[in-house]
């Protein structure tokens, strides 16, 4: 009998093993190359031989001095983290209203969300900077170089993104639950807080993760809007590669070592949130 559970399971196990091996190679070959470069003396990078004559573990200690790596990583975590948190909180409100109500301007709002995703960020840099300075002058406060400014800027791309994601998750939450809550005398806020929020939480975690990464990877805005004290790691890493009219030099080893090190906090955040992303959705009301 071809239709046997154990045969299929056995076959699936083989397929899975092959698949995992292929994926591992695909992921790990470049990563291992990076690790190898991180312990290769700079002079031996790309000189033909694959393995260095001696290990340059000192790259992992030197990298902390070449740039203020620890501070940069801290800044990135704060900025990308807060940008992600604000993005999902603000987006939740918008996504809720848009997914639950019909009103004039709704379509426009949705379409403009897509438009915002299509705008090249490069084009927004100068106008945005002008706006920030104008606001700065009105408030008579120093904004450029502050955490808050960079965080708000990252919302330019994190917010439309988070809105879209939450909208799609919102669509999976049955209206009946809220209606029941309203009938029971809950206020709108209580409905959102006690019925919608727990169900959308997994979606919010996903939206947070993606918003976080958008901020984490940005180089363009951060290079203009941060001061040395608030410099993010994506910008800081560039300092291992100097370029300019006076010629350039690359600290290959330190650059790779620092890149790997700076990735650790995000991997931890991811691993920590992973079970919420995966586990959470299953619990939701999607099962009728």
């Amino acid at each position, binding site marked *: 009998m071809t239709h046997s559970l154990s045969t*299929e399971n056995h076959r699936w196990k083989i397929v899975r093993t092959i698949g995992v091996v292929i994926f591992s190679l695909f992921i790990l070959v470049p990563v291992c190359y990076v690790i190898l470069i991180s312990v290769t003396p700079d002079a031996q990078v790309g000189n033909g031989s694959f393995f260095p004559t001696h290990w340059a573990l000192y790259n992992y200690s030197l990298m902390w001095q070449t740039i203020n790596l620890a501070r940069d990583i801290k800044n990135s975590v704060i900025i990308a983290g807060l940008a992600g948190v604000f993005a999902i909180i603000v987006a939740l409100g918008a996504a809720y209203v848009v997914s639950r109500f019909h009103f004039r301007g709704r379509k426009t709002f949705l379409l403009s969300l897509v438009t915002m995703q299509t705008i090249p960020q490069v084009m927004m840099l100068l106008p945005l900077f002008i706006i920030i300075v104008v606001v700065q002058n009105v408030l008579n406060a120093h904004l450029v170089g502050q955490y808050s400014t960079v965080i708000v800027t990252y919302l330019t791309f994190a917010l439309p993104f988070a809105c879209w994601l939450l909208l799609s998750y919102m669509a999976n939450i049955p209206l009946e639950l809220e209606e029941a809550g309203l009938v029971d005398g809950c206020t709108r806020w209580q409905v959102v807080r006690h019925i919608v929020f727990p169900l959308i939480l997994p979606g919010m975690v996903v939206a947070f993760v993606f918003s976080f990464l958008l901020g984490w990877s940005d180089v363009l805005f951060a290079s203009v809007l941060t001061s040395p004290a608030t410099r993010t790691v994506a910008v800081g890493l560039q300092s291992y590669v100097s370029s300019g009219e006076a010629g350039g030099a690359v600290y290959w080893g330190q650059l790779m070592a620092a890149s790997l090190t700076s990735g650790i906090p995000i991997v931890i955040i991811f691993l920590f949130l992973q079970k919420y992303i995966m586990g959470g959705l299953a619990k939701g009301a999607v099962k009728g």
Partner: protein
Amino acid sequence: MASKWAAELGCLRPLVTSIEVGGVTVAVVPARERPEVGGSTIGLTQSGGRRRMASRPPFWMMVPAVLLLLMIVVTPFLLSIYTSFIKLDQYTIANWTRAPWVGLENYVTAFSQGNALGASALQSVWVSVTFSLATTLIITPVGIVAALLVNKPFRGRGAVRAMFLIPYVLPVFVNAIMWRLLFMNGWGLVDQMLANLHLASLNTFWLIGPKSFWAMVIADVWASWPFIYLMVLAGLQGISEELYESAWLDGATHWRSFFSITLPMLRPILGLALLLSTLNHFNNFTLPFVMFGTPPAPQADVLPLNVYITSFQTFNFGLGAAMSLLTLIIMMVPAFFYIRMLRLGEATS
């Protein structure tokens, strides 16, 4: 009609029951009382098509989002529109409010001549569109396969899931530097491997010439497939195990189940993932900028890079803005139809 229904709800109240699903108590309105329930055949509760809540929308919840978007996206955007009509360059930037109005000149230049390197907006839009489509088309099956591989528990799944995230968490800057190193002519790992396998010559240029497009796609695919993987994995959690069980009892193989259950159920989340991915790749600036630097090969001269060179390297901000806006208009047409097709705006799946 809706208000009538709301009134009805009051009398329906006693009919609302609580059921327990997976340890969570969920209140459910009996199906026979649901108006216009979407054509769900698989037991998924779908918030019905055009149905909306009847009461007044709590607009205050939208205020922060609208306010922020107005300030940080809309206003700079309007400013860019203005910029596209003026001659804003190194001679006028220090006094840009008084820069001369040139009408549509920037738009004409964007089409006909392009930036200082002679790369027109249309050419760059084409590179960007093919780049984002190629990347998205490649990462979609890769991401789905990856999600299916680790969906069911097995020994070491945690480690594999963690490993799958590595490419995604490396900053784009690092990814670009890494691939620049891998694609270096002659001594890069890619050329070395190709030469050792006798697939290509040691002098296969990846960072310049036509292959730079594919170098960019490969680097981007490597870094971004976990996005689809994560979205699909999350989507898979929402598919009831019972569906597979009943399909199995009906004699469907895993293979059949994938096409008749998994894919249709993933459709909404995939639709969204594809849209977000396409837009995101379309706007990828850091990767080509770090990987190729300026000037890039014409085949890798994506629009953000072109706009960057035009605006920040040759100080032609008016032309840069005109190029961006033209692209926006060109991009809006397919985006609009795509959204209509997916009906993402509707609260339906």
